[in-house]
């Protein structure tokens, strides 16, 4: 990269980051109760869940002998008060066992959306983003 293209790239990145921060700032603090994923996204995620997750965690995320439940109070208690980024990053970096990191960010976001749906958080009009920094703005609150 030449120095001029580097400067241009830096400028573009700077603009993009500022724009992103403005967007996030405007959104304020949201929670999983605010419709942070779409029905269509959760459906895509559920199909992925069947293929990538259900073998160990059960078709409805009810858990198995080794794999913990992904629904219910014990699961919620782990994430309550955290952000959706923690859940997304857990999926992204440690799952599925043996295939860690092999799913795309979008696929991980879709699976995370499905998990929110399994846990009865309402869908909304916008998709769950696939960047964990953005997901840090969405609080995981177990009980409304």
């Amino acid at each position, binding site marked *: 990269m030449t120095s001029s293209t580097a400067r241009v790239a830096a400028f573009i990145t700077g603009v993009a980051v500022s724009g992103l921060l403005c967007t996030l700032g405007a959104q304020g603090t949201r929670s999983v109760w605010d419709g942070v994923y779409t029905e269509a996204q959760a459906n895509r995620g559920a199909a992925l869940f069947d293929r990538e997750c259900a073998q160990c965690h059960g078709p409805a995320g009810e858990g*198995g002998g080794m794999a913990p439940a992904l629904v219910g*109070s*014990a699961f*919620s208690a782990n994430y309550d008060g955290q952000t959706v980024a923690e859940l997304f990053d857990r999926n992204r970096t440690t799952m599925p066992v043996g295939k*860690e990191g092999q799913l795309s960010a979008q696929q991980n976001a879709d699976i995370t959306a499905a998990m929110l749906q399994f846990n009865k958080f309402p869908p909304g009009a916008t998709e769950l983003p696939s960047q964990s920094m953005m997901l840090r703005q969405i609080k995981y609150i177990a009980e409304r």
Partner: protein
Amino acid sequence: MSRTNSRPSIAWAALALVVVWMAAGVSGQPTGSSRMPTQNGEWPNYSGDVKGSRYSPLDQINASNFNKLEVAWRFKTDNLGPRPEYKLEGTPLMVKGTLYMTAGTRRAVVAVDAKTGEQKWVYSLDEGKRAEMAPRVLSGRGLSYWTDGKGDDRIVYVTIGYRLVQLNARTGQPIPTFGKGGMVDLKEGVVYGKLVNGKWQQVQIPLVEGEIGTNSTPLVVGDTIVVQSAMAEGLRYEYTNNAKGLVRAYDARTGKQLWRFNTMPGPGEPGNETWENGSWNWTGNTGVWTEMSADPEAGLVYLPVESPTIDAYGGNRLGNNLYDSSLVAVDLKTGKRKWHFQITHHDLWDYDLAGAPLVMDVTIDGKPRKIVGQPGKLGWLHTFDRITGEPIWPIVEKPVPPSDVPGENASPTQPFPTKPPLFSRNYLAPDDVIDFTPALRAKAMENLKKYRWEQMPFVPYVIPSDKWLGTILVGNTMGGVNWEGSSFNPETGIFYTQANNSAISGASLSQEYFDKIKPEVHTPNHIAIWEAPGFAQPGFEAPSTSGYRANPVAGGAPAAGGGGGGGGRGGNALTEGLGGLSIIKPPYGVITALDMNNGTMKWQVPHGDTPDAVRNSPLLKGLTIPKTGQQGIVGVVLTKSLVVVGDPQVTAPPDRPRGAMLRAYDQQDGKEVGAVWMPAAQSGNPMTYMVDGRQYIMVAVGGGVYTSEYIAFALPRSDIAKPTSTQR
């Protein structure tokens, strides 16, 4: 590729420090003496001893000071593998001032200074694809220790890829004279059935793809190492065929195989006739996936056997299926069966034996008795004379309901122990249905009308229909006692256990799943999964649990506190309208004490804080809910006077930060006498030890967003009296 990071100079310095107080201590295995292996403050076996006791006579930490416990040191396991672990189930050993443990997602072996947690060495084996395809992954439950008593001290463990490895306890280097270069390939000699030119043969499983492993610890008794076998977890099989379960013993010095016990008796052996229509040929599993126990004096090893393929459907394996779900006693020297008792005939529920058998000496009706107790998912402690196999108290065969699944033939009777009493529920009694409010109860009773609900265990699964959505089951897959096992105080004759009291599901075999597992699909070839076209190639779909529906509509998603509802896909007919609460009443999880001198319950208390989702439930607003306990898998450790165990779930009650408590109960009355905070739930059984006059309680925690960690608790040094000659 093996990696060893050895720091012998530090190790020797540490050993020199402790050798003074350890001088009178004898490490190693009980080989005839009745002396407790934990007597000198060590913890040289997974359960303290080889009898499943989980008992240490230490009493520095007691009811008067438990609340003063502080974190002495902690050991984070994140970097011991290619990714962090969240499910550390390990229990370390402590021998001669060093703690040995498995940790991390590559199941590394780590030695640390027991006083400070300083790492001495670490060993791990990168097994590549063989580990990636293994049925039992992660760090496992721990390891074992062998000594010749003359300074040859070795650590023994089984890798994720099913290799038995021996390491020098001081350096972490493989023992070159054991097996080949320090290891024995346990996959060699494991067989499965194959139809060749119209004749069934038992052939070697593939060394990479063949499905077998273990995450339990090998049992070291004297100079014999006994190794179990496990396959993938239950309720996920679509293939009738798999590796056949077996237990083998090896010479602790050389790794030479001493004997082999086939947990599915072959042609000509007693019990083979219990596999009707030749089903022994193709059926797999029936291994021993959990901890085993031994009576070193009697020279007997007790094997808790699991269920065969396919767990929830037996149409491909009619008959009682020995030694499915049986407790089997074999001779330590020869592996020959001495006696067995089948706890569930023709298991269709994943009731397989999950906890270590307890070898107990008690006095019953004035007579000293040598007994063995098998705790399990069913909530019973099946108790036998451990030499003869005769039940101590009558175990009665009673009629149980038939199956209406095509091709199935459920056993017409099952054994019901008369004593000791149940330590956790194994069916849903009407009185145990949720009744926080009349409305909740009415809704729950309405929901139950959609299910096959008979008030006893052993009610078969159904295929969903207009008549039934599923079968109400309590205490099968995740109920009662699981791998965490139980405990026994040999000085008082009292048995203690944590148990899951609320694992309820509306269990069914979906039509879609049944169509994959019915006999017509598999007959006559009954191939194993690794023989399936495209196996392990991109696009090959591994058998999923999709056929096992804890609830046909929504799955048996765990609800608030208990099991059976509260989430999942779509609606959940079992817990619909219950606001996410379990359909089963608290207590969701319990600790129980059974007096084994007379087979009675001494006490039972709920264990674990009331889950947030119950405490904060809008449906329960204004009600006073007594402590509910929590469901989950957490083992206890016994000190002289305490039962110590952590919460299985994290909570955030108003009076403390989010986390889980490590609790102490008085062994006499079950009263909680102390609790200390932990950042995450207990994930592995605690143990206790003493070094330099200071007692430690060690526990593995993790889960959710918290990566795995071992935490050592101890009293502040200022609270510890100077060691006396008897208190090393």
